[in-house]
C-alpha cells in the first residue's frame, strides 16, 4: 500500500468511527432535547420548549442530515455539552487526555522494554530451563485478569512494601504501577512474538557468518537480530496499542487516575451520552494516529518497502 492509500484508509476508519459514535447517540434512550433543557435539574420544560429545542438541535431532520450536521460540529471541535458537568465535552476530554496518554505510553514502553529483550533472552536459551520458565510466565500473564493483577500489586507494593502510592495522581510515581499493570499482558504477548521471530532469524546464514567473524554477542543481537525481528513485531504493536488504550479504563478506575476512561465510566453511570460519544471518538483518533505513525516507522526500518515505493 502506498502512503496515500494508507492515509485515505485512516480517514475512512475515522469517518467510520464517527459514524459508530453517532449511532451510539441515536440509539441512546431518552430525548436529547429534554436532557439538555432539564440539565440543571430544576426546570420542567414545556412541550413547546422541547419542540423548539428539538428544532434547534436539528433532531427533526432526516437521520443522514443529522449525521452531517453532527460531523460538521465535531470537525469544529464541538462534541456537545455534558449533561452533568454542563461543560463542553471536548474541553473536558482534552483536559484529561494527557493522563490517559501518559498511562498508555508508559504501559507501551514497559511492554516493549520488558517484552522484547525478554523474548530475545528466551530465544537465546531455547529449550533450556529459562525458556520453559519464560513460556510459563508468558502463558500466565496473557491469561491473567488485569484488575486482579492491579489489586495484587497494590497489596504488594503499596500496603506491604510501601514503595509506591496506592492511588491518585500528581507525581511520576503514581504512574508506575498502573503502567506496569496495564502493560504486563501486552509485554507477555510481545515476548512470545519476539521469541518466535528471533528463533526464525538465528539459524539464518548471515547470522552464522556474523558469528564466525567473531562479532560480540551483544552487537550481533542488537544489529543483526533485533532489527530484523522488529519487522514482524512493529506491525502488531499497533494492534496491541488498541488493547492498551481500551484497558486503560480499568487501570484508571482502580488507581484513581483522572483520565478520560474514568470520566467515561462516570458518564456511563450518569447516562451522559455526549461524553460516551466523545470518548469513543477520542480513542479512535488516538488509535488511528498511533497506527499511522507505526506505518511510517515501518517504512523507515524496512528499506525494501521504501525502495519498492520509490520504484512505483
Amino acid at each position: 500500500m502506498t502512503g496515500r492509500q494508507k492515509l485515505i484508509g485512516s480517514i475512512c476508519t475515522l469517518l467510520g468511527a464517527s459514524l459508530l459514535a453517532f449511532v451510539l447517540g441515536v440509539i441512546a434512550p431518552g430525548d436529547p432535547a429534554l436532557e439538555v433543557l432539564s440539565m440543571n435539574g430544576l426546570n420542567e420544560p414545556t412541550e413547546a420548549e422541547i419542540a423548539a429545542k428539538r428544532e434547534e438541535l436539528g433532531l427533526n431532520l432526516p437521520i443522514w442530515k443529522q449525521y452531517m450536521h453532527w460531523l460538521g460540529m465535531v470537525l469544529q471541535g464541538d462534541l456537545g455539552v455534558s449533561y452533568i458537568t454542563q461543560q463542553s465535552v471536548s474541553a473536558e476530554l482534552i483536559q484529561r487526555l494527557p493522563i490517559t496518554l501518559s498511562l498508555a505510553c508508559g504501559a507501551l514502553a514497559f511492554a516493549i522494554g520488558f517484552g522484547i529483550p525478554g523474548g530475545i533472552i528466551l530465544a537465546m536459551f531455547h529449550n533450556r530451563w529459562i525458556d520453559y520458565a519464560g513460556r510459563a510466565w508468558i502463558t500466565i500473564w496473557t491469561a491473567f485478569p488485569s484488575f486482579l493483577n492491579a489489586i495484587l500489586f497494590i497489596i504488594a507494593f503499596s500496603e506491604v512494601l510501601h514503595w509506591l502510592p496506592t492511588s491518585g495522581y500528581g507525581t511520576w510515581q503514581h504512574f508506575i504501577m498502573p503502567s506496569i499493570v496495564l502493560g504486563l499482558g501486552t509485554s507477555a504477548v510481545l515476548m512470545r512474538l519476539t521469541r518466535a521471530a528471533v528463533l526464525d532469524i538465528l539459524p539464518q546464514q548471515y547470522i552464522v557468518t556474523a558469528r564466525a567473524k567473531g562479532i560480540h554477542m551483544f552487537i550481533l543481537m542488537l544489529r543483526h537480530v533485533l532489527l530484523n525481528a522488529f519487522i514482524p513485531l512493529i506491525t502488531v504493536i499497533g494492534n496491541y496499542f488498541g488493547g492498551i488504550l481500551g484497558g486503560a479504563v480499568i487501570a484508571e478506575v482502580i488507581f484513581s487516575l483522572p483520565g478520560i476512561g474514568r470520566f467515561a465510566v462516570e458518564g456511563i453511570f450518569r447516562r451522559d451520552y455526549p461524553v460516551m460519544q466523545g470518548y469513543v471518538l477520542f480513542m479512535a483518533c488516538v488509535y488511528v494516529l498511533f497506527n499511522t505513525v507505526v506505518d511510517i516507522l515501518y517504512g523507515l526500518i524496512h528499506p525494501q518497502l521504501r525502495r519498492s515505493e520509490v520504484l512505483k
Partner: protein
Amino acid sequence: MIGKGKAGAFAAGCLGLIVFVSLCAPWISPYDPNQIDMSNRLMSLSAAHWMGTDQLGRDVYSRILYGGRVSLLLSGVATVSTLLVGFCIGVLGGYFRGKVDTCLQTIVHIFQGVPGLTMMLAIVGVLGPSLKSLFLAIVLTSWADFSRVVRGEVMKIQVEPYIEGTRVLGASAFYIMIVHIIPSIAGTVLVLLTIRMSRTLLMIASLSFLGLGVQPPTPDWSVMLNDARPFLRTQPHLMLAPGICITAVSLSFQIIGDTLRDRLDPKRMQRVEDIA
C-alpha cells in the same frame, strides 16, 4: 516439547471440573448463594463456612460454586456467536474477493478502528448494563478479528491447486466451501475459539468489575470481586477466591489453545498468534 501435552490435559481437566461444579452447583452448595444473614457477616474461614461469609453474610463457598455459571455460559454463547458472524463474513470476503471483499473489509477496518474495550464500554453504557447488551457488545467488538483471520486462511487455501481443480471440474462455490474450505480451516478456528474464550471471559469480568457487566446480586465471580473491594485489607480471601477461579478458567482456555496450536500445525497458526 516436554510436558506440553500434560499441561494441556491438566488444563482440560481443570476446566472440566469447574464446568461440572458450576452445572451441579444447586446440588452441592451447602447454602443458598443469596441467603443474607447479617448476624454472620464477614466471618473468616470456618467449618460451617469453608470460605467465610461476605459483607451481607452470604456463604462465599456457595457463591463460588454458583459464580461460574453466568460468566461461563455468557462467554461461551457470545464467543460461538462471534465465531459464526466472523466466520461467515471472513469466508465470503476471502472466497469472492472483489467488491464484496472490499465492502466487508471496509466495515472490518471501521470496527477495528476503535479499541475493543472502549467500544464495549460505550455499547454497554448506551444500552444499559444487562446480559443482552453484554452479549451484543462482545459480538460487535470481536467479530472483526475473527473474520480477518478466517479471510486470510480462506485466501491462502483457495489458490491451492486442488481447489482450482475442483472448480474446473464444475463444483459450485457452495460445494467448495462446505466440502473443502471449511474443514481445512477448522483447526485454526478451533484454536482461535479456545484462546478467544479466555479473552471474552476476561472482558466480561473486567466490565463486571467496573459495575457494568453482570449485575448484583447474581452470584458471579467478577461481581464478588467488585463487592469485596472495600474489604481488601481485612478480608483478602473474599477477593482471592473468585480471583483464583477466574484466572484458572482463563488460564485453562489459554493453555488448551496453545496445546492445540502446537498439536495441529504450528506454522500455519502464525496469524492466530498475531491476533489472539
